[in-house]
């Protein structure tokens, strides 16, 4: 089972990350998602298929429409969303540590 690798590959693509960001706040139909991109509709469908296959997105049939929403149970996604935020603070704190190691009091 190489689900983990698939998830990693899925989020490595900028369009797929953008799709995840879109549906993070609300579930959307394939058409509504595709409307946000200049990419051809079949290309967006392919991205949706990949995201669904590696369980980052869930499909839900509502009447005649299929809605896509984020698979919240997949904690790895949450971790990946958080990673840039964590890195931002990690970089700041690394700098702080480095600066203070050579700190000389003013007095």
């Amino acid at each position: 089972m190489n689900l983990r690798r698939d998830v990693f590959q899925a989020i490595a693509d900028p369009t797929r990350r953008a799709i995840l960001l879109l549906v993070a706040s609300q579930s959307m139909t394939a058409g509504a998602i595709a409307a946000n991109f200049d990419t051809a509709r079949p290309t967006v469908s392919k991205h949706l298929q990949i995201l669904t296959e590696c369980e980052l997105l869930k499909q839900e049939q509502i009447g005649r429409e299929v809605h896509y929403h984020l698979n919240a149970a997949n904690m790895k996604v949450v971790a990946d969303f958080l990673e840039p935020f964590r890195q931002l603070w990690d970089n700041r704190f690394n700098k702080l540590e480095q600066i203070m190691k050579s700190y000389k009091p003013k007095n």
Partner: protein
Amino acid sequence: MEKKTKINAEDGKQEIVITREFDLPVALLFTAYVEPEIVEQWMGTKVLKLENKRHGSYQFQTTDPKGNKHNFNGTVHEFEPDHKITRTFEMENTTFPVQLEYLTFAPLTMHTSQLTMHIVYKSVADRDNMLKLPFAQGLNMAHNRLQEIVSKLNKR
């Protein structure tokens, strides 16, 4: 390798906890939050005002690569040297509501210390939007780079 900076963001809560251990005595760690020129270096911001006292306030200003200025400010509620700072944080001219920050500084050994940053947001959605911000910015940067490359190709 274990990550030095940890973020604890539980699902459905309007708060997060950031923890970090430093190879610094607690007094030095605290100094990094107090001296304006030091804050400027590690936060990557200009410090317009920094009053380290109860009822004091602070104002930071950053300039993005495009030259746009972004202002941040807050009010200090508690200030106990080498121990804690409680303050608000606001990003001016944005839709993000004010957030409340509880900073706790603790010695681990003579030469090491730990910072705990407990941030409370107005709502769960506000917290999630704030957490997604660096992710979204990274995405925009990647997008802009792509557009630059494409426009260069088109000029040929």
